[in-house]
């Protein structure tokens, strides 16, 4: 969700979300951010807890856990028996205390503790995310550098059009189109992925779908950064010195042009998170995103809360890393210590 703004920011969106120019020591800055993260988690978990425990949702949970033809009296007694009728604040307090001691509660959908169900799923998504990053980042940077190198050239026009098209095609469209083309018509890959048995055949389409969607944006940011660098004075000097174009690009331009995309790539993580949910649902890959959808559809509050906490951790954590990393990479921003 954070990436919503990141993704569709206008103009040069390459600056970090928080300016480090306020003269704070780095440790102080990280502490402040961590505090905000904890506060965010508290507020969000409260909201999720509240919404998940609204009467219609509790009724849905009771019906799902037992059988759908249960009478209202049975629903009430089931809820009473399982402690759902106790005061809301008390139960939220219990949940918070549990989380602080490392116990994330019981998943009603998977019928096992969250601590058992979730880490495995996170691992599966980790594999998916790893391959997405491995394919997405290098190709996006390459596209961005090639098109930003000579702004306005035919190559630039073509690659820019490609980037816009990929950003405009959401996963549930591109994933389906790829399935039609590569699975149904050509028969190269499989349209369903399997966490237990990852092969080139069944893993290519999910990875391809996600990395192509994310690629366009990073490529566009790299292009903007690259073309800005290419018009700067020191590049002109390098040209005038008589250096070959290749040397100018590789030795002089590249280093500075890659600072901005660094931030963008990190801020892409939250975006990956939403993508993961859609792609895992689309290809039936039973990882974190699939778990999240299952938990939400079955009103599995404890699991949903754990998933939300993981998401917040990813979003704010990557923001923090990107801000700190940007400060170290960019000599113009120095944190006073």
């Amino acid at each position, binding site marked *: *969700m*954070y990436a*919503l*703004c990141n*993704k*569709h*920011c*206008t*103009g040069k969106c390459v600056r970090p979300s928080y300016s480090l120019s306020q003269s704070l020591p780095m440790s102080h800055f990280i502490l402040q951010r961590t505090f*905000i993260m904890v*506060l*965010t988690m508290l*507020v*969000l978990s409260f*909201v*999720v807890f509240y*919404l*998940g425990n*609204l*009467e*219609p*949702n509790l*009724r*849905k949970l009771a019906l799902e856990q037992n059988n759908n033809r249960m009478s209202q009296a049975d629903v009430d007694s089931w809820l009473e028996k399982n402690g759902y009728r106790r005061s809301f604040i008390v139960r939220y307090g219990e949940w918070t205390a549990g989380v602080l001691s490392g116990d994330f509660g019981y998943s009603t959908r998977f019928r096992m503790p969250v601590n058992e169900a979730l880490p495995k799923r996170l691992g599966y998504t980790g594999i998916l995310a790893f391959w997405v990053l491995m394919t997405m980042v290098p190709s996006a940077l390459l596209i961005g550098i090639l098109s930003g190198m000579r702004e306005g050239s035919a190559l630039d026009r073509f690659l820019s059009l490609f980037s*816009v*098209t990929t*950003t*405009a*095609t*959401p996963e*549930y*469209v*591109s994933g*389906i*189109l790829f*399935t*039609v083309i590569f*699975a*149904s*018509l050509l028969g190269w890959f499989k*349209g369903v992925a399997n966490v237990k048995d990852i092969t080139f055949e069944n893993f290519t389409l999910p990875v391809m779908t996600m990395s192509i969607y994310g690629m366009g944006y990073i490529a566009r940011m790299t292009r903007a950064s690259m073309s800005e660098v290419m018009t700067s004075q020191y590049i002109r000097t390098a040209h005038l010195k008589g250096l070959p174009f290749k040397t100018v690009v590789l030795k002089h331009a590249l280093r500075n042009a890659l600072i901005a995309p660094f931030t963008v790539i990190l801020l892409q993580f*939250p975006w990956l*998170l*939403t993508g993961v*949910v*859609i792609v895992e*649902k*689309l290809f039936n890959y039973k990882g974190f995103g699939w778990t*999240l*959808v299952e938990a*939400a*559809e079955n*009103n599995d509050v404890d699991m*949903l809360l754990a*998933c*939300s906490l993981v*998401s*917040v951790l990813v*979003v*704010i954590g990557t923001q923090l890393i990107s801000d700190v990393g940007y400060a170290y990479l960019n000599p113009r921003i120095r944190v006073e210590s």
Partner: protein
Amino acid sequence: MDTVSIWELWGGVAVRFWPVWLAMLITYLLMRMYRKRLGVFGHLLDSAVGITGLMIVLFWLFTALFADIVSTFEPLEQFFRYRKKPPGIVEAESMIPMYFGSDNLGRDLFSRMVHGSRFVLMIAPAATLVAFVVGITLGLPAGYKGGRVDAILSFIANLILSFPVIVLFYLLVTPGIRETALPNVMAGVFFMFPIIFSLTVLRSRFSERPGLLFPWSVIILILGGWLYSGVVFNSDPLGLISMDPNELNIFAAVVFASSPGVFRIVRGLTMDIKTRDYVAAAQTRGETPWYIMLWEILPNARGPLIVDACLRIGYTTILLGTLGFFGLGLAPESPDWGSMINQTRGLIRLVPTIVLPQTIALASFVLGLNLLADGLREESLKD
């Protein structure tokens, strides 16, 4: 069962769209005639990217307007003999071909795709507009005044932005939630903003001229109150304005999800613009803060905001599609692109073409908006 050839198929489709082509041509000619007066939109005509984007967007806009003329069948009409048919099959009774084939219930995909544009073009721009009003009303003071107002509003915005959008929709757009008052409360809060915003605009402009301020305020209050009662409470006294509870629910959730983004952009732009000389001049003249924000800062931030609005309408379209994809919020038979994608995606193995119309429609509309935004950005940077 007869099928038409590929030439007849595409020829037929092209002919069906005749009102759309005509309207696009007229718009293009009008734009050429008045290009001087259109500002940055006039400059669009010089940019190949921009004009392509604009034409795609106009295509879908006019398709939504003329959906009843363009479509061949009713979007909900089911032909049981023609289930999951490939493109070009001729419906024997009316002798009209189902240009893009039919879905699992024998509904004509072409007509559903055409009608699906209505849902998107009704919700996406309106929700974006409301999100912009909310974002502007809160982002201007946050950026201009800073301090505690800014800290609190920014915290709330970041809070919403760090929430995975899917969880948000699963929590906010469910039948369970619709039984509670929450969607109405949310819509009630969001739709207050346009009224408050217009009143503030008036007050800051006409504070010295009560003769103008008073009648205009009354007009706004009556008009706004009328729309408000119709949209939020579904109790328009004239019975003209009404909103389906499902759509209101989706609308509120979409506004909720996208206004923090607008807020951040407006806040950033305000912080940038408030250091300019003309703001200092206005402050020296003794203008009120709201006058400066609304009449000095906001007009000067319009370029990036227009570009962002185009992108955001596209993003909202993607969000609406996501909702349909997860089967959230809409009636199952509703002919919107997202739900259509969700219903047909399981049948790819049987009829690969069955998913194409709705997916390509959605992607092309978003692509059009992105190209339009690119064109506008390019042209506004030239000035």
